[in-house]
Structure formats: structure tokens, C-alpha cells
């Protein structure tokens, strides 16, 4: 099952030479447009939102982006990935070169292509001491061996993490010896308050055991989808609020979006750029406790780039009238 190449640049409407700022901008714009909570056609929007997130996950990370660019240069039409001399392709082989049992997920929010090359967890064979022995003369014959655990990523939106959700997953496995494909469908519960990196264990959905051994487990690692407005850190959320200089100096009442409705926030007079204003209990749920993390509104003072003559005059007046010296410390 060779994974199809994904053109992440096209997904985000960017050229290959796009800068980090352009990638961020384009992602935010598209994520706002296709966010499942906002879009009218939910089904199509959801698919699109996942694609945008996956593209952003790779392109916004310089290391992953470099790898992706190299992959693209080595990709053959229809033939999949052509590994550079000396290297080996993805996760499809064991150390001795024999093909490993292949897994292919649907419903996790990530494409096969992503899973194969960028899945953070990789396909580690924990719990199966010596996966390579399966094909040796005595390996497996009559001896009960527990199947390997499988790891995969699952894309979860902040809204899903907020409320918890049930996600249908289908997993196709192909036996490398017989080529027989099997599909397992099951539903996985994403608990409310699932944080980034948390592993959800699905018992018995890993690789099959041999010689009467039980199957391994499937571990799905939660990847919180990037949100156009919020950045999660544990159960806390961060929101970057752009402010005009006079708003920061004089104070202001602003409305900021929250995951459970808009919130009125008072910006106190004299708010510095980068200052964090805490709004209690407006973050993600903390486990089953019923408590919630906090929302941090981060002040981000914007400087006007264009101004009228009248505005310039006012700034000039302020310059003369003000006794404020931002560099007074360095003069003493």
C-alpha cells in the first residue's frame, strides 16, 4: 500500500519558497474559513480542515519541512518514494529487510503519507521482544508470543478536547506473507480534557500474536489541531490580542473569542506588549475533575504603519509633551 504523495504547498495555496510568516498567515486564513464550527458545509469543511492542519504541521516545522522537500524531490510518479542510496523507506520493513505487517488507518485525521513519514510516534514495536525473530527458523513456531503494540497519531480539535467525543476508526492490516487484507472498525472515545501528546490505549487492536499469543494494543497519540485563535499549553489556552498603542496605554474593554462563547476582557491602563492577562477557568477541562485551565490573553501591541497628517501632528505633540524615556535605565 504505497502512500500517495501529498502536495502540502498547494493545500495551503503557497509556493515552495514561502516564508514562515506566509505559511502561518495562510494557515490561519484557511483554518478560519474551514473550521468545522464555523463552516456551513460541515462535512466538506472538516475534511479540508484536516488537510490544512496536516499541511501546517509539516510546513510550519523547519525540520519536517526540509524532510518533506527532500521527499518531494525523490518521489516517483505512481511508484511511491524512491529512497536515496543507502537509506531505507519508511516503516514498512523490519531490520532484516523482510516486510513487516502493514497498518493503514482511516479516521485519525492524518493521511497515510503523513503517518508513514511524519507520524511523531513512529511504529515502535514495544511489547514484542524481538520483532525480528518472527521469520527465523524457530521464532513463533509453537511458542505463544504477544503481538506488537502499534502507535499512531490522532488529530483532535480543541472543541473535541473540550467536550470529549467518539471517533470511528478503521484500520486495515495486510499480512505480508499471504497479502490478505483485513479491516477492523471500532470507535475510540476521546475523553474531555485530552491534552496534546496523551496516549489513548485501545486494547487488543495491535498486531496479532503468534502461536496463540494475544494481540498487542493500539496506542493513539493525541495531536491537538492547530487553532486559528488559540494555542494550547496543557489545559491552558493562549490568545494573542492585537492592541493599538493608545489602547495599551489608556486601557480598554475588548471582546475576545472563547471556546465556550465570547468573553469580555478589561485591558488595564499601562499594559505592556507581551503581558499576559489571565481569565480564570476558560481553558480546556482538566481530566474528569470538572475544573478548567485558564485562558491567557497575550497583549500584542501593533504600531500603525500609515498615518494622516493630522495623526502625525498628534504624535509629534505627544513627543514634545511626554516626559517618558524608555532608555532612562541605560543612561544611569
Amino acid at each position: 500500500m504505497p502512500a500517495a504523495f501529498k502536495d502540502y504547498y498547494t493545500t495551503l495555496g503557497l509556493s515552495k519558497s514561502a516564508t514562515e510568516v506566509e505559511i502561518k498567515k495562510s494557515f490561519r486564513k484557511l483554518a478560519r474559513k474551514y473550521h468545522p464550527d464555523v463552516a456551513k458545509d460541515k462535512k466538506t469543511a472538516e475534511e479540508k480542515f484536516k488537510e490544512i492542519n496536516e499541511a501546517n504541521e509539516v510546513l510550519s516545522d523547519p525540520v519536517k519541512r526540509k524532510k518533506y522537500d527532500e521527499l518531494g524531490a525523490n518521489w516517483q510518479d505512481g511508484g511511491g518514494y524512491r529512497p536515496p542510496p543507502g537509506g531505507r523507506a519508511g516503516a514498512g520493513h523490519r531490520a532484516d529487510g523482510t516486510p513487516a505487517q502493514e497498518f493503514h488507518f482511516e479516521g485519525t485525521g492524518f493521511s497515510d503519507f503523513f503517518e508513514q513519514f511524519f507520524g511523531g510516534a513512529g511504529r515502535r514495536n514495544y511489547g514484542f521482544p524481538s520483532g525480528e525473530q518472527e521469520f527465523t527458523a524457530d521464532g513463533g513456531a509453537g511458542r505463544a508470543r504477544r503481538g506488537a503494540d502499534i502507535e499512531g497519531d490522532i488529530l483532535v480539535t480543541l472543541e473535541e478536547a473540550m467536550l470529549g467525543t467518539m471517533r470511528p476508526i478503521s484500520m486495515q492490516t495486510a499480512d505480508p506473507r499471504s497479502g490478505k487484507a483485513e479491516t477492523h472498525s471500532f470507535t475510540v472515545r476521546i475523553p474531555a480534557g485530552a491534552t496534546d501528546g496523551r496516549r489513548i490505549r485501545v486494547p487488543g487492536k495491535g498486531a496479532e500474536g503468534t502461536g496463540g499469543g494475544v494481540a498487542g494494543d493500539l496506542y493513539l497519540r493525541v495531536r491537538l489541531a492547530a487553532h486559528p485563535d488559540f494555542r494550547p499549553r496543557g489545559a491552558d489556552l493562549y490568545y494573542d490580542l492585537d492592541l493599538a498603542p493608545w489602547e495599551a496605554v489608556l486601557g480598554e474593554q475588548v471582546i475576545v473569542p472563547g471556546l465556550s462563547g465570547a468573553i469580555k476582557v478589561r485591558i488595564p491602563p499601562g499594559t505592556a506588549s507581551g503581558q499576559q492577562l489571565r481569565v480564570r477557568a476558560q481553558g480546556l477541562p482538566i481530566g474528569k475533575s470538572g475544573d478548567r485551565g485558564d485562558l491567557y490573553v497575550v497583549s500584542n501591541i501593533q504600531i500603525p504603519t500609515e498615518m494622516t497628517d493630522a495623526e502625525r501632528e498628534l504624535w509629534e505633540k505627544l513627543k514634545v509633551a511626554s516626559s517618558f524615556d524608555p532608555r532612562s535605565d541605560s543612561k544611569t
Partner: protein
Amino acid sequence: MNPNVPDDSAAASRYAIEAVAEITHVSRRLIVVYCQHGLISPVATPEESGWLFDEEAIHRLRHIEHLRTEYGMNMAGVRMMLEMLGELEQLREEVRFRRGG
């Protein structure tokens, strides 16, 4: 396989030490030793409600056993490896968080 039947046994589960031993094939005694060495930790304090573990602990136990049997690491090696991996994970998260800003 029974499709579309909610498989929620994995959601926010708590496992008693006996269950963990059965799932991971690591003896209770060894689990306690790992806890004493700080390699894994129970979710609740043993005095409060007995030895209870979460999925992360099961995953970690599998990882520890893998490092010991596959790579022949001793306890000190496993501990260093887990600490380094934990730190790496934290740094990755921090980078991710900052990049998102």
C-alpha cells in the same frame, strides 16, 4: 470484529496493580521497584486508594521492558533514557507552542 460498538474501555481508565501486571507481564514486585526508582508513578498515592495506574504508565512499562530486553539496558540506563526522552518531548512541545504564536 464488531464495528461501531463504542470501545470506551480505554477512556480515562484506572488500572489496579494486578491488572497492570497482567496486561504488561511485568511482575507486581518489579512494578513496585520501578515506582520506587521513580521510573513510573501511580496516579493516586498508595496510602489513599491503593496502587492505581493510568494508560501512560502501561505504555511506559512496555517501553521500559523494551529498553531492558531489546537493548540490554540496566535500571540506570533506562532511567537516563526516559529522562532524556521526557525532556526532548517537553522541548518539542515548547517549540511547537512558540512557533504557533
